[in-house]
């Protein structure tokens, strides 16, 4: 098969094709439109150095690769463009394969582009075998029908979600956070992501927490977002971006793990009230799996020891330590 492709390439010739003979047809377009200024400048100075890929159609030609070059040519009012013409004997999937290959020379594909390619292949009736042999390795997609369907399903998400996936180049794994959501929920989280300017990992953390709280409490995700005033926090002018993210995560944690949160808050408060000497560290297992506190003392001189002794024998410290141990015993 590979040899055939080489032959197909050899058989192609570059032709100068009048623009009016090329259909404005986006069927094979899989990459998102880009700003054209740089390309326009280049074409104005040097012309189109990289020919378009065209296939014959009833009324002229269809573009397989070179949509941006075509747009620039139109905007610059060029009469014709250079193009490789695939013979109509070459199967469409083969022409398309070469278009994808050409694209990959310039840059990698994001998940939305991969989804578009999968959809195009299905629409042109590409066989599973051909897809397996040529496209899947090229797109780095495993030979698994479920995964392929999952990728194609990305195109059913609202534009805002697709834009987000493209903008932050989300992996399939990360894109899955949108899978179980209604379109309202998807839009809601994209709004949060946009307001906070957060990437996939942080958004996924917020999404997971919201969804788990909603399942735990038997309420909708929208209700969780409203209860915790997440949008209000996102829009708050008095906090910077990081403060907003921290406040949101804290609120979610409190709601998702109410007891753990409460106990850790109490422990933190008690520790704060103890004004630790600089050479003493006091910690505990925040997951509460291990009982007790851990005291670490660094002795550099005997005066450190005396300071520690004085500190630990104070009534308030003993009282606070005792309270901490009781909380960490976890037996109410």
């Amino acid at each position: 098969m590979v040899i055939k492709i080489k032959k197909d390439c050899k058989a192609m010739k570059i032709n100068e094709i009048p623009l009016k003979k090329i259909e404005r047809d986006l069927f094979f377009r899989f990459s998102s439109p880009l700003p054209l200024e740089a390309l326009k400048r280049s074409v104005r100075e040097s012309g189109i150095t990289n020919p378009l890929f065209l296939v014959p159609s009833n009324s002229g030609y269809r573009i397989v690769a070179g949509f941006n070059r075509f747009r620039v040519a139109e905007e610059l009012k060029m009469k014709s463009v250079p193009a490789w013409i695939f013979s109509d004997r070459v199967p469409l999937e083969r022409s398309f394969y070469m278009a994808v290959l050409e694209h990959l020379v310039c840059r990698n594909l994001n998940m939305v582009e991969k989804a578009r390619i999968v959809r195009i292949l299905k629409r042109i009736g590409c066989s599973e075998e051909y897809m397996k042999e040529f496209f899947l390795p090229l797109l780095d997609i495993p030979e698994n029908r479920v995964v392929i369907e999952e990728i194609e399903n990305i195109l059913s998400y609202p534009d805002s979600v697709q834009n987000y996936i493209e903008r932050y180049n989300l992996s399939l794994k990360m894109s899955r956070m949108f899978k179980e959501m209604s379109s309202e929920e998807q839009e809601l989280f994209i709004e949060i992501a946009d307001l906070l300017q957060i990437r996939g990992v942080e958004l996924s953390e917020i999404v997971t927490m919201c969804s788990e709280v909603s399942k735990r409490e038997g309420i909708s995700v929208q209700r969780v977002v409203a209860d915790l005033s997440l949008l209000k926090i996102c829009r708050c002018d008095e906090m910077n971006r990081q403060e907003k993210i921290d406040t949101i995560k804290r609120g979610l944690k409190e709601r998702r793990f109410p007891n753990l949160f409460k106990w850790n808050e109490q422990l933190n408060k008690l520790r704060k009230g103890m004004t630790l000497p600089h050479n003493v560290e006091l910690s505990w297992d925040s997951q509460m799996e291990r009982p007790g506190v851990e005291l670490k003392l660094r002795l550099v001189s005997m005066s450190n020891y005396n300071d520690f002794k004085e500190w630990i024998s104070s009534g308030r410290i003993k009282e606070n330590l005792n309270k901490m141990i009781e909380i960490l015993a976890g037996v109410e």
Partner: protein
Amino acid sequence: MLNRIRKIYVDSSVVEDKLTIRVLERAGDLPVRVVDKSDFTRYLSDVDISKGKQILFITSTEGDLVRPCPGTLSPYLCCRYTTINNQIHCPMDCTYCILQDYLDRPYLLLYTNTNDLFKSVDKNLMDQPGRFFRFGTGELTDSLVLDSLTLLSQDLSLFFSTKRNCLIEFKTKTDCVKNLVENPQKNVVVSWSLNPQSIVNREEFFTSSLESRLEAARMCQERGLMLGFHFDPILYVPDWESLYQSVIDELFSRIDPASIVWISLGTLRYPPNLKKVIQKRFPKTKIIYEEMIRGLDGKMRYIRPLRTAMFRKIYELIRGYSDDLFVYLCMEPPWVWDDVMGYHPESNEELDLWFARSLYKRFPRLNMDEPAGDAYK
């Protein structure tokens, strides 16, 4: 439960085996196909688990059918149980079942080389002569769910009745005790995993009702069989206190504590990867959304104070019915034992010894050697 099996495949190399013939004789109208083992494994490796649970593959294995229970990592204490894995996977479908993630094959396996299993049990007994062994078939399957097909409970009971210093436990969520009560043998424990009926309805699909399980236990008791009960997994649900109280009251209204060899307590725990499987297979279940942490062994479990509260309550309820019944915690650290019972075993070996001592004291009919600490080190 048997009617969940839709098809039986038989490895061509075990067609003539005694167990195969027995199963096929009892399989009624179930379609049976003889296959080459490697073809079958390849063909069915990516079958969906729900479909796999309806397929039984009869074959043999060169692997060891008797193994120490993998338990979990320190500091969590385990009881040094010994598992018999001649049947793998389960046609019942509990939301929390670890096998969904643990096993790499989605279908039910039945190994026909029972004699190898017996040899392996003998080897274990010979290698550690002073130790009392608790064997069980319920680690990677339900011990009795296919028993009407396999009659394996009879083979195993008869084999163990000739042995000293060991017993076999059949752990189940069914009421399939016919073969055991018809011909009760010594050294046999039949045990049930118990949960309130509302939890059975929501989380333990295709299992017997609580009522049927307890009724089956009563029948076994009548026939002089030893009984065990496992409150595992205990689930944190609204009204858990009253729900578990009802189960315990119901249990002791039918069963004499003197016939119970042990009761285990264990709260829900699972490897993190299981969460996704549960979410996918049982989207309605809420059990994974409680306050859980990743324990010191890497498994997800309820936060300790929650576990302690549940253990304490259930332990007190059991103690209300019996002072000397052997109650143990499954996969808990020493400090949880202390909070619940006021003491803890120093090691897995010591816990194993405690089992033996309790059995020696409470079940003289086992005719076992008096447990000596040295044999458990």
